[in-house]
């Protein structure tokens, strides 16, 4: 990413970069932190830690480049290295299996044929948010980056340190899992015959 060339900024310029390029992303960062930790206090700690690191390593950032992706990458790394290690068990997802599935003939088989646009219209409460939060954190992350934050595949690959092909396959699987969860909600809300 951008950190390969070391920059030299005077103190005043550092503060300008921090205030004008880093701080405008704080609400997106807070949302990302919250969606990863599912706890608002932990999200605050994670965001604060990320911004302090960003300031400390500001000379690794090239002014005017993609600050949001750079900050998201630091937050993701802090989450994995500091937060998840302390609090959560490691990821249980078998990505080889995911990749094999994505590249197989089965990929066109509709896993969730029983979800319709109509049934989504009644989900006016926390159903979508709860469905997202219920996913394994690695699947949740790709949906957050792509659908909530609008990152491109290439940016996601850099933030997550994975190849673009893996971004695609993980996103595909994540969306199917999300639809399965939404189908469960739809059924519980009374959509019995929800064939497409």
């Amino acid at each position, binding site marked *: 990413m951008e950190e390969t060339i070391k920059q030299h900024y005077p*103190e005043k310029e550092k503060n300008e970069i*921090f205030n004008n390029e880093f*701080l405008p992303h*704080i*609400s*997106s*960062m*807070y*949302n990302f932190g*919250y*969606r990863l930790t599912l706890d608002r206090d932990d999200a*605050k700690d994670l*965001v*604060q830690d990320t*911004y*302090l690191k960003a*300031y400390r390593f500001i000379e690794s950032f090239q002014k005017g480049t993609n600050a949001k992706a750079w900050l998201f990458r630091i937050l993701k790394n802090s989450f994995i290295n500091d937060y998840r290690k302390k609090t959560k068990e490691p990821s249980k997802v078998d990505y080889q299996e995911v990749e094999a599935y994505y590249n197989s003939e089965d*990929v*066109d088989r*509709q896993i969730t044929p029983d*979800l*319709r*646009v109509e049934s*989504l219209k009644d*989900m006016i409460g*926390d159903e*979508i*948010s709860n469905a*997202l939060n219920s996913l394994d954190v690695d699947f949740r992350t790709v*949906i*957050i980056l*792509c*659908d*909530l934050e609008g990152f*491109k*595949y290439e940016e996601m690959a850099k933030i997550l340190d994975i190849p673009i092909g893996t971004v*695609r396959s993980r*996103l*595909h699987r994540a*969306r199917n899992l*999300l*639809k399965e969860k*939404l189908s469960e909600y739809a059924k519980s809300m009374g959509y019995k015959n929800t064939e*497409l």
Partner: protein
Amino acid sequence: MSKLYNPFILSDGNKPSCMQMLQLILDGEASHEQEAYFKSHMDQCSPCFKSYSLDIKIKELLKTRCCGESAPTELIEQIKMQISQNATS
């Protein structure tokens, strides 16, 4: 016409599945040529059409229901304070 040339076909000659094409369209990763091909493909492929409508709706709901909360103002203040303390120490 659409059967003559498929811009989704990969350099190795493999044709991506409907779901793989749909994902590129949904995420704005397709070229204009691929978008045009997919639009005409959807006219003949009912599962693609239905999945497209559903996926667009889910994407829209995620954006409207799971974003929008502002970071607490005290968090911004704390960060600024920490940085100025670190700078003076």
